[in-house]
């Protein structure tokens, strides 16, 4: 494999935002997750829990509620008082409707899917009608005294439970008047000065209302009489979320201590028909508040302030007990946030509202395998570029020569020219960027830094030629067949002839840049693409999918390569397929065409195409033993996948030149150190 000096970078101060709401859609098995900075991400749970779409955040959009309506429509409502519908095809916001009730705290879709209920700050509950292209205000229900923090529909659509501060009201939908008002104790068996906030309510079809509140209680109410049936104290802190399964035989609650409890309806004795709700399982996968939970038919999903998304399949619901039934914890992003300029050893870090440009340090020392070399020159923070406006940055890129930086937000596109003179850099903005470049999903510079490729969310690909201080629009590749399909990933060949672009559903398109037309399309695969790259000289397109399959497609020959067919026939090693995190970056060695370097969050791997492929019986992870073991053993166990787990968690890894690698790590402790304060836990002996 060769010897490499590795630049181990830990100064990327990446802190993801906490998860605020989670909504599960049963028909398409997708999960919509909204974060505190306004980003909404869509995870495809059947495609190995891959994040396939996302909507960038906005400073004023603090979402408080998220829900799916009939026909795969996604709505969110937040503290700016607007109900927003998202366009899942074009990856932008369709429209925003102001509810005129002040900040919106909760939202619920009726069981038939055609009506939307919204609970506002001023205590009003508003009913909206969902029309095919918009939503329309229908009427207001009786106004309550304090803000409506949680809402739930009865499965028949006739009644609504609304949780507020210190009380729960039950409304009849037809008349809009409050039928019952149930007062909630401020503390379990006691009095308290702090008001009791009802964080979540759920209405079951037999008329039971389940409420969770800030005193740590889970209460069961009878909506016909308006009385308390059962009272459970499950935590010392707030219980912040509740989600009921479709069959109404189990529900899950999340607390502020990070514990998630599972309640199930079990029969009192083994053959009686009488059932009662019993707290069955506690799960402690979070350290901070669990602010959102969801219940899919087979799994419990939870997310909170500690930014992890945890999906716990329930063992009794899973049919086949294989690796699919394992716990999934999604912590690191599924996209690349770092770009690298190889010539000048620069790294560009993308944050939500700014970009940072760093120059890597250098060393003159040499050492053996495993040594840490001292730096002769420290890493330098060259540039801190803040974006104007409240929108988040969608994507960014630096050119390989290091003279151009481009980034895009929803409404604007920015292109900067960098000039270097002895250690200082100066920045110059290229003004008057054309309007069609905004809202780009992916930006890529060509290898010689003369061309810029921009993939917009409308499905078109723009090619721009970069001149000294200005630009010229060369060409736009329009999407096929009238469907709007956003292009998510781009790859350009080092010789500048080919451009590969992958969308969300169709195959990977390969365009000929010199002749400006579509060259071929790689056949579609039912899992989304997570990484793309084109090898130098051979022009092989390497594609990694979310189910950990790696394909190699030869662009000049328009067919899969021999190696790719071989490995598809044999199949990948079972441990390779059981990896949790997707491959986010692929790169190549300039002098060794048989090597492919790829990485995911917990390992990086060099695939040597000349060595034999491993089958399920061989050891997949066999690092080189430190002492020289016998050559025979080494030859016997050597196979094509050279995996190293030294650097983890990895956010980015690339080959800078023939003997240098750069690995950007982000230790989990550093992320946790910057999170908001958690609930105090008293442990004996401390």
């Amino acid at each position, binding site marked *: 494999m060769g010897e490499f000096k590795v630049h181990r970078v830990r100064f990327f101060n990446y802190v993801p935002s906490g998860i605020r709401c989670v909504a599960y859609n049963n028909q398409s098995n997708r999960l919509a997750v909204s974060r505190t900075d306004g980003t909404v991400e869509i995870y495809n749970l059947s495609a190995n829990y891959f994040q396939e779409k996302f909507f960038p955040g906005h400073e004023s959009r603090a979402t408080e509620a998220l829900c799916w309506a009939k026909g795969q429509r996604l709505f969110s409502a937040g503290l700016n008082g607007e109900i927003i519908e998202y366009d899942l095809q074009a990856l932008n916001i369709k429209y925003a409707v102001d509810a005129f009730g002040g*900040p919106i705290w909760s939202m619920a879709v009726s069981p038939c899917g055609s009506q939307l209920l919204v609970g506002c700050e001023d205590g009003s509950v508003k009913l909206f009608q969902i029309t095919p292209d918009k939503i329309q205000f229908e009427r207001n229900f009786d106004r309550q005294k304090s803000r409506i923090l949680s809402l739930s529909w009865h499965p028949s659509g006739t009644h609504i439970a609304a949780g507020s501060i210190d009380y729960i009201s039950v409304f009849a939908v037809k008349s809009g008047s409050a039928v019952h008002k149930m007062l909630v104790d401020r503390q379990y068996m006691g009095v308290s000065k702090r008001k009791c906030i009802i964080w979540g309510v759920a209405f079951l079809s037999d008329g039971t209302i389940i409420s969770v509140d800030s005193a740590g209680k889970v209460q069961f109410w009878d909506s016909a009489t308006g009385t308390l049936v059962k009272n459970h104290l499950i935590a010392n802190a707030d219980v912040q979320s509740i989600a009921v399964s479709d069959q109404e035989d189990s529900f899950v609650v999340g607390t502020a201590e990070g514990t998630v409890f599972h309640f199930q309806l079990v029969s009192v004795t083994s053959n009686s028909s009488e059932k009662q709700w019993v707290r069955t399982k506690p799960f402690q996968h979070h350290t901070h508040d669990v602010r959102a939970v969801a219940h899919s038919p087979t799994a419990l999903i939870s997310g909170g302030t500690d930014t992890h998304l945890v999906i716990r399949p329930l063992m009794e619901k899973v049919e086949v007990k294989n690796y699919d039934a394992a716990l999934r914890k999604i912590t690191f992003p599924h996209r690349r946030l770092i770009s690298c300029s190889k010539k000048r050893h620069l790294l560009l870090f993308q944050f939500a509202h700014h970009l940072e440009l760093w120059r890597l340090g250098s060393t003159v020392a040499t050492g053996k395998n495993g040594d840490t070399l001292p730096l002769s020159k420290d890493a330098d923070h060259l540039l801190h570029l803040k974006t104007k406006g409240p929108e988040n940055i969608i994507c960014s890129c630096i050119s390989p020569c290091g003279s151009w930086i481009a980034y895009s937000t929803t409404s604007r596109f920015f292109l900067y020219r960098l000039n270097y003179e002895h250690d200082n850099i100066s920045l110059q903005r290229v003004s008057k960027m054309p309007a069609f470049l905004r809202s780009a999903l992916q930006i890529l510079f060509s290898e010689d830094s003369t061309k810029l490729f921009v993939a917009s969310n409308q499905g078109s690909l723009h090619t721009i030629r970069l001149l000294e201080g200005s630009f010229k629009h060369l060409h736009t590749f329009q999407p096929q067949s009238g469907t709007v399909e956003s292009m998510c990933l781009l790859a350009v060949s080092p010789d500048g002839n080919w451009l590969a672009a992958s969308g969300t559903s169709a195959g990977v398109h390969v365009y000929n840049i010199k002749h400006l037309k579509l060259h071929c399309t790689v056949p579609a695969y039912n899992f989304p693409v997570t990484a793309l790259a084109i090898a130098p000289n051979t022009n092989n397109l390497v594609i990694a999918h979310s189910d950990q399959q790696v394909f190699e497609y030869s662009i000049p020959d328009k067919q899969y390569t021999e190696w790719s067919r071989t490995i598809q026939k044999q199949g990948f090693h079972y441990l390779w397929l059981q990896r949790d995190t997707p491959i986010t970056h692929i790169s190549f060695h300039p002098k060794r065409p048989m090597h492919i370097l790829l990485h995911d969050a917990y390992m990086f791997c060099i695939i040597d195409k000349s060595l034999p492929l491993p089958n399920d019986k061989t050891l997949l992870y066999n690092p080189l033993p430190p002492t020289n073991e016998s050559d025979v053993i080494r030859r016997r166990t050597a196979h094509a996948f050279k995996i190293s787990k030294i650097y983890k968690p990895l956010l980015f890894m690339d080959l800078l030149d023939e003997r240098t690698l750069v690995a950007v790590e982000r230790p989990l402790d550093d992320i946790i150190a910057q999170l908001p304060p958690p609930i105090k836990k008293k442990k004996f002996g401390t």
Partner: protein
Amino acid sequence: MVQLRPRASRVPASATVDEGQPASEEEEEAGHGLLLGQPSSGAAAEPLEEDDEEGGDELDDEAPEELTFASAQAEAREEERRVRESVRRDKTLLKEKRKRREELFIEQKKRKLLPDNILEKLTTAGQTNIKKSSGKLKEANLQKENEDCDKGSDSKKAKVQKVQSVGQNKSYLALRLKDQDLRDSRQQAAKAFIQNSLYGPGTNRTTVNKFLSLENKRLPVKKAAAQFLNNAWGTQKKQNAKRFKRRWMVRKMKTSKK
């Protein structure tokens, strides 16, 4: 005002001086009395004060001076008049100040408003309550407006109920700033509510450092806290030290070269 009889220990000469003096002294006395809460206690405290001030000469018993009712009444009236005068003067001064401020505000407001011709145009365009939006919105909406004009679509995510292009150029979107302020204040109140209920007083929160160090405390060999070092301590001092060191090195090089 309560008239208090002058004390026995008072210097007799002072009583024969101006009318004004006893009155002021009485005021002082009364003032002391009021401060101490009761005249009696004032009286009780008086001798101590007097003793400190004037030494021990005035301990002789002397008959208190006779002050006629008329003179005392005259003094009191004088007092009241003076007080009334001062209050009236204060009021007029305040009034003046307020008037000046009002005028200043009107000036500023006039300066802020758009010139009359544009206002006329706005009102004749058939739209009430339109004011120019801030620069940022203008720019962002500029592109949106252009795009939408090109496409000819009507639906936009506009904050304002109606979108009206003013004039021929159709280059900006008009918003009512008062609505925006109201909305912002409500949003702030909502955020403050959430912050208070989750992280405010009464919630049982702890720092991340303490939370992560809980494990370390219970190990058989106790380890240090998770964030034992405070790297943010004294950053300014460290920076200054670094700069000083660099400059000192340069100076040393120069002198050593010479």
